């Protein structure tokens, strides 16, 4: 992750098609096109895992079935706790086959259709449910040195509670952090950078103009006085957090992608 940040490599979120898609062929083609663009740009494609609990295809199967070609260290897979053990094993094995090293390990959002790992599945006892901490610990224990494990950090949660969680995640094997979307600057992100000066931190840039969706995503209401300008915010993030990487969520490939090339260079 440190190399990504130093080389100004954007992390571009890609969402696989939903299982319920009625235009699957078109969705697959669109995903493949976006993936190819991210690879050509030298950025890192970050593929979500049943985001918001919506049943979707897995990133690794998308790459394998569509014969996509990941560049070296250009793919990050989100991995949450809503899998069967055999599915988890399959995803990790596919990552190894495909040379995917970076995993963003999160608790995730469940749904009626999604199974959830049981503590016993990953050799854990004394906990009621598997969270990202237990999943991190399992991967770090079973695959030492194979993966680079990242975790989420939500600056909108009560600060000490969130830092407590982060400590447990770091102890379990996390080596980088991706924040929830930041608008301009957030004091808790500043505190994070101050407390962990050596920890690679990637701030998330919300690239949709629909700021109300961000409130839903982070679980807290975010109000702005002026209309939200995603590209303007991206430049502000670079200016305010020059030592951080940037993760782009809900990015428009039609209207925003071509503007990225010079954004990080100037940051103005």
């Amino acid at each position, binding site marked *: 992750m440190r190399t990504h940040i130093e080389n100004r490599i954007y992390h571009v979120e890609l969402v696989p098609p939903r299982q319920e898609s009625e235009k699957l062929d078109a969705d697959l083609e669109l995903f493949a096109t976006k993936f190819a663009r991210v690879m050509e740009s030298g950025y890192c494609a970050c593929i979500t895992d049943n985001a918001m609990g919506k049943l979707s295809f897995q990133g690794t199967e998308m790459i394998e079935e569509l014969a996509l070609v990941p560049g070296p260290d250009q793919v990050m897979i989100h991995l949450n706790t809503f899998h069967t053990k055999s599915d988890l094993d399959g995803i990790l094995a596919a990552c190894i086959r495909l040379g995917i090293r970076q995993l963003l390990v999160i608790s995730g959002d469940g749904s009626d259709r999604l199974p959830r790992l049981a503590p016993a599945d990953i050799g854990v006892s004394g906990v009621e*449910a598997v969270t990202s901490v237990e999943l991190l610990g399992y991967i770090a224990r079973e695959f030492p040195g194979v993966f680079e494990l990242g975790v989420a950090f939500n600056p909108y949660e009560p600060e000490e509670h969130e830092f407590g969680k982060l400590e447990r995640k770091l102890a379990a094997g996390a080596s980088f952090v991706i924040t929830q979307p930041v608008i301009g600057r957030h004091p808790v992100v500043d505190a994070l950078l101050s407390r962990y000066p050596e920890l690679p931190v990637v701030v998330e840039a919300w690239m949709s103009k629909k700021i109300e969706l961000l409130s839903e995503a982070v679980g807290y209401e975010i109000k702005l006085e002026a209309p939200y300008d995603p590209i303007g915010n991206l430049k502000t993030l670079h200016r305010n957090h020059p030592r951080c990487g940037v993760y782009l969520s809900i990015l428009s490939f039609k209207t925003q992608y071509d503007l990225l090339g010079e954004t990080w260079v100037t940051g103005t």
Partner: protein
Amino acid sequence: MKIVVCVKQVPGTTEARIDPETKRIVREGIAVATNPFDTYAVEEAVKIKEKVGGEVIALSMGPPRAEAVLREAISVGADRGVLLSDRAFGGSDTWATSYALAMAIRKLGNVDLVICGKQAIDGDTAQVGPGIAAQLGWVQATCVMEVSEVEAGAVDGANGGSAGGDGSAGRMVVRRMHEDGHDVCELPLPAVLTVVKDINQPRIPTLRGRLSAGKREIPVWGAADIGADTALVGLSGSPTRVVKTSPPPAREGARLVLDGTARESARALLHELRLRSLA
């Protein structure tokens, strides 16, 4: 073992409404999905096939677009699907539907086991599974939560199905739930099961499975194809008369009282939230 699993396309759970004139569920122009209980039936059928060998055939009755639920079943392991679709079937109640499905099962031939979801979430009658058993004259077990033993019949070739008519020398042992506990039942095959959610965790279709299922031919059978008496299907074959419908009373929010010290209560609350994936 030749297994038929019945699947139904139902309205999305938040969109179901009743036509005030016909008293029937409005199915046109709304999002649809596989009846959730049927996904457990498909999973159990596939698990049994994986254990003892044979074939799983997904069977549905509905309009042409209901073939989507058959493709979904194929994407998670069913070998093929058959859609019963014919204007003559329109307006069928649970008895007429059971008759049509039973006729299709007879036509498929040498079927050892039929598995259905406990009920469909649109009609909520839980009658079609038992209705199929009655139409076929087979034994049945409803609300099955576990299949613990399955023995296929003596003749169980690669093409599936057992020797002779609809009969089989196979047997199975199941556990069925009821309000006071559960029963362990031994059933001779052929038999009909209806299953509840506790029975398994349905697998999620892979992209490969989904793409493969999308290319499969789904035969469509009409009333004539299954030898159905048209007087016994559709409105004419349906003894049910809905004389009045009304919306159910609004559900009150659930209330959970946590006893103990503040620490114990907080721990119990966290436990409940985690079970609901809210913390």
